């Protein structure tokens, strides 16, 4: 790469791009992006993880490709170009899922397609990739993908644990607890609790980081 500034690949600035979406700049709980798909696939841990990985891959590569193309795109068809690149990547991911993790791809069904309109990806393309070099854009994509993934995995973990008493499909709550009168809370698996759980995550996050509180 003919990077004239000779900036190291993992300079402090680049590392910050990668890690800031984990917490203070989390795409889901702070920027409120990409909620659409975040909630629908989190009733179980496994689809949640596959979904996060897919979003991370699409986000990183869409950022990389758009950043490489950024000086050639005619401004009038900018949005369409972005959508085409993202849609093509999503189709690739979908084809790979169908070929190698067929069970999970059946569970995700239409939600893989919805990665196209995941606002995180479009948001990062507009806000970052179109004005930055490929490598930082790639890191930014990975970072935001992971930030999104963290929330999905946390949600998937608690919803599956409390709703079905399992983790990754394995029973973790011993029978003895059920004998005491404990019951799985089926409501956790239904859509409304996903929304309420995100509300609670936001609450916890903002109680710890007061600077994020809205006026």
């Amino acid at each position, binding site marked *: 790469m003919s990077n004239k500034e000779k900036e190291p690949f993992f300079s402090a600035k680049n590392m910050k791009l990668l890690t800031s979406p984990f917490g203070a700049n989390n795409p889901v709980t702070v920027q409120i992006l990409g909620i659409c798909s975040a909630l629908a696939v989190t009733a179980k841990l496994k689809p949640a993880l596959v979904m996060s990985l897919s979003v991370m891959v699409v986000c990183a590569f869409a950022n990389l490709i758009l950043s490489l193309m950024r000086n*050639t795109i*005619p401004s009038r068809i900018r949005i369409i170009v972005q959508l*085409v690149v993202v849609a093509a990547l999503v189709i690739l991911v979908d084809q790979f899922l169908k070929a190698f993790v067929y069970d999970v791809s059946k569970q995700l069904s239409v939600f893989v397609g919805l990665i196209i309109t995941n606002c995180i990806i479009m948001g990062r393309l507009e806000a970052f990739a179109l004005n930055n070099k490929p490598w930082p854009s790639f890191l930014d994509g990975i970072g935001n993908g992971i930030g999104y993934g963290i929330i999905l995995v946390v949600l998937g973990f608690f919803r599956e644990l409390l709703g079905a008493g399992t983790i990754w499909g394995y029973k973790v709550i011993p029978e003895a607890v059920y004998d005491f009168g404990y019951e799985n809370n*089926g409501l956790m698996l239904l859509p409304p609790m996903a929304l309420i759980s995100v509300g609670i995550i936001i609450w916890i996050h903002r109680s710890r980081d007061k600077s994020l509180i809205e006026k």
Partner: protein
Amino acid sequence: MNKQSNTYTIFYAIIMVVIVAAVLAVVAAWLKPIQQVNIDTEKKSAILGSVSLYNAEEASNDPAGKDAYVDKAYKEFIVDAFLVNSKGERVGDATAAFTVLGELKVAYAAEASKRELPVFISKDKAGKVNYIFPVYGKGLWGPVWGYIALGGDLNTISGVVLDHKGETPGLGAEITAPEFEGQYIGKKIFNNEEFVGVVVTKGAGSSEGNDHAVDAITGGTITCRGVQNMVVGCMSDYVPFIKKTQLK
């Protein structure tokens, strides 16, 4: 070069579309066989499942891989497969039967008198014979389908596997649960030589003592009605074949 000119924009769009289309077509063509294996494996395991010859745990722990395990079991237990027409005659071989399985929707879209539908015959280690009939119908949101296995008398149901594309989780989607599928075992599709099928009745326990009914799922009535139409409607297409075979 002027990046805002119409020519540039149009050429840019054309080149981009060509590249994207080429990449997608290549990948789709490359992955197609692998995806097909997955789909075939799912069908084979469902067929075996309807006669309780498929163990999911064993399959995923098999060192040769799930696909190979299912394929081996399928070859071992499914002794015959063919297509039957509306007069109950054999019209196609095993390969044709499996191909039609992938296009059941098309097969059932044909006029009743022109339908050619697949039948599978299994024989387990004890030598017990089962006839497996694929069925296809419409649930609440999308297609439902399944496999109905009849015992050697071609009357008593020995097992059922149901599946669906997008029924409501926790309600209609419960048709795939063993509690619902299990209800079919032991039910009979003929009432004194007359075909009646198995219907779905509302309310827990409402089907008790009835040889031709199962309980519906609470909150999943429309899906269950779809399953009922599928079981009665599709099985009636097989009646000529069943009658013919029973006479032998």
